[in-house]
């Protein structure tokens, strides 16, 4: 079968995880010419609650567009971790925001902890780019797209004025994780 690789970004509504998923899918599909599908689930209510965005990347056309067994998962909140870490495949990876996910999900996967939100706030200066920090981190963790492809996709998405900010966020996330897992 194909090289199907499944990623999940989870957290709370409004944390920009859908955008993170889209950028990753664009990096894969547009920059790198792979196949990619991005999808999301709405919580039970229109607003609030746990939210997730999934990206499937493959060298072949992708059939089932939702995750079946997740290769790598990001969780920014406890609720998201509780709800969405289930589904990580044996040997998969989980990246959690160490400030917000205190009860670490247990399972046959590798968990990487890193204070994503506070990094965005304190090192980049804008909490709003936490999703891009997370994106950089996930790219570093998984290597599913190249660092450059990810950066290019970030640049293509954000308004001119915010390019530098976002590049910094992306690269910070990327490097922090690289050094963590090195």
């Amino acid at each position, binding site marked *: 079968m194909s090289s199907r690789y499944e990623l999940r970004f989870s957290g709370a509504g409004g944390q920009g995880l859908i955008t993170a998923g889209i950028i990753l899918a664009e990096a894969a599909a547009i920059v790198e010419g792979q196949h990619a599908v991005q999808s999301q689930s709405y919580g039970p*209510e*229109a*607003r*609030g609650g746990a939210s997730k965005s999934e990206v499937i990347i493959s060298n072949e056309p992708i059939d089932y567009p939702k995750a079946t067994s997740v290769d790598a998962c990001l969780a920014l909140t406890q609720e998201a971790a509780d709800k969405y870490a289930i589904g990580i495949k044996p040997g998969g990876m989980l990246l959690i925001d160490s400030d917000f996910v205190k009860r670490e999900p247990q399972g046959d996967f590798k968990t990487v902890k890193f204070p994503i939100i506070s990094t965005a706030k304190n090192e980049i200066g804008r909490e709003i780019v936490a999703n891009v920090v997370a994106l950089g981190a996930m790219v570093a963790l998984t290597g599913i797209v190249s660092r450059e492809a990810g950066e290019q996709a970030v640049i293509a998405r954000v308004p001119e004025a915010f390019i530098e900010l976002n590049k910094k966020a992306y690269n910070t996330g990327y490097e922090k994780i690289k050094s963590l897992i090195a």
Partner: protein
Amino acid sequence: MAFDYEQYLRPGKLPHIWCPGCGHGIVMKGLLRAIDTCGLEKNNTAIVSGIGCASRLPGYVDFNTLHTAHGRAAAFATGIKMAKPEMDVLVVGGDGDGVAIGGNHFIHACRRNIDMTYVLLNNYIYGMTGGQFSPCTPTWAKASTTPYGNPDPIFDVPKLAIGAGATFVARTTAFHATQIDKLIAAGLRHKGMAVIEVLDDCPTAYGRRNKFRSVVDMMKRLKEIAVPVKAAAHMTPEQLEGKVLTGILHQEERPEYCEQYQQVIARAQGA
């Protein structure tokens, strides 16, 4: 001194689903105070809504509550009121629900002068579906389906209601919280169709897109545009430019619909 909202709220339903700063919560509180003022009985009161953020209101309050289909609240409510005229019937809902898809039921309820109180939460946008323009979105404002600005003129809801025959028409804003309950209470006491428009805000689907920096900014605008009818009488057209009148805008006495129908019954029974 704090008003005891809990007595009218269904237990365990808070926090509600509305976004931070959404005006609907303020109106809901005013509605409950008005119901309390007028001494409506829970068992004897029906609150009917359509679909939209505003229309989620009935789910929180402990009455006979009916969350219908988009735009149809007034028609469902008419069925309830006709079938059981002794009940107190309220309709609540958004601008889209009330005067876009629901416009026909709205004007016909006004025409019939059926004894209902219609609280229209006008946040001048379709909030629930993510910010498409409504018939109340200001011309040239931004909405998700007016990326170049909204070409549509707006409905003046009170003017429409009056044109259609409503016998009690009032307006206020979410900023004017103390007026909300007073006007709704006046509407509840009025025999016939009472329409109370409350201008409130949708920071999520309207505010951001239209460059309001915060909920507070939006509230300030409500404060600024409101002019009580009495005050307006002394103002020039220039001064009134961009303002909206608040207070009771229209009130008259006309036979109420269910009472008219009682006459039909009397005639049928040969009285």
